[in-house]
């Protein structure tokens, strides 16, 4: 006599939640990644420290060739600070609030220095702000100097 074995019994008491959990997890990870990338911060790295306005920086080591300074003065376009914008000026740069003009002037200066035998790494761009100049405008000019190809950029004491 053949005795049939007991059949497996599967209890299905509701919808299968597993795919739902998987999808929710994927969405969660996506949003976490998107959130962390959206709030990403970066850094403008300077190794120059602060210089004295119009003066020299740290004392030179024996045999060290001093950097060629290139000063750019930065102030708020509106001295009261109520209206946005900055004003930049330098030797050969008429006062301007256009960042493209500043960048063009800086790039032209660098080419002229290079043509005269001064390598870019021996040029020190000094940002000389007024006391009330807003930090964000200084960052804008700092970036213009970076875009113009300069490697050494420093802030000076205010004027």
């Amino acid at each position, binding site marked *: 006599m053949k005795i049939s074995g007991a059949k497996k019994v599967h209890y299905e008491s509701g919808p299968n939640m597993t795919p739902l959990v998987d999808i929710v*997890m994927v969405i969660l990870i996506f949003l*976490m990644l998107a959130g962390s990338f959206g*709030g990403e911060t970066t850094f403008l790295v300077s190794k120059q420290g602060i210089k004295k306005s119009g003066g020299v920086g740290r004392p030179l080591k024996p045999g060290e060739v001093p950097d060629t300074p290139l000063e750019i003065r930065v102030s708020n376009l509106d001295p009261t600070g109520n209206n946005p914008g900055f004003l930049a000026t330098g030797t050969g740069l008429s006062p301007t609030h256009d960042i493209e003009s500043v960048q063009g002037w800086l790039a032209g200066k660098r080419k002229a220095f290079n043509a005269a035998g001064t390598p870019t790494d021996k040029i020190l761009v000094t940002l000389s*702000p007024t006391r009330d100049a807003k930090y964000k405008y200084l960052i804008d000019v700092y970036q213009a100097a970076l875009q113009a190809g300069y490697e050494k950029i420093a802030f000076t004491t205010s004027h």
Partner: protein
Amino acid sequence: MPDMKEGGVNVTPLIDIVMVLIVFFMLVAKIGVSRGEDEDIPLPSAILGKSLDSLSNTLTLNVHWNHNGDEPILDALVDGQKRDLHLTKQYRGGSDQELARVLTAFHNQFQDKANLIIRADQDMPYRQLELVLLACAEAEIGNVSYETKTGS
């Protein structure tokens, strides 16, 4: 009711567990590397900013615009604790610390590799930031990184 065929190992629970572990480690990593940065500070925007290779030799200094005074309001994560810092020597004591002392200790610890991250309010007048930069120069910290948010 028809018989259900099972053709192999069910990997669904494995995927679920792996997902949970990924989320857990992501959260732990995110929380574990806190530099003490104050998210309320509106940072200036920059498109040319770089990422730092290592944050192990950095000190993040939060520089708030003080609307009612000449000195900025400063705080940083010092010895694992968020502390208010002061530029002048007449600080109140307690958990507060003097900026110059913190910067000097930071420089002594990492020497030339010390990298100060300045997280300053984008609308702050330079006269307040200047005081911080002068304190850095006095502590002989040459590497200063200005933290910016990405975008124009």
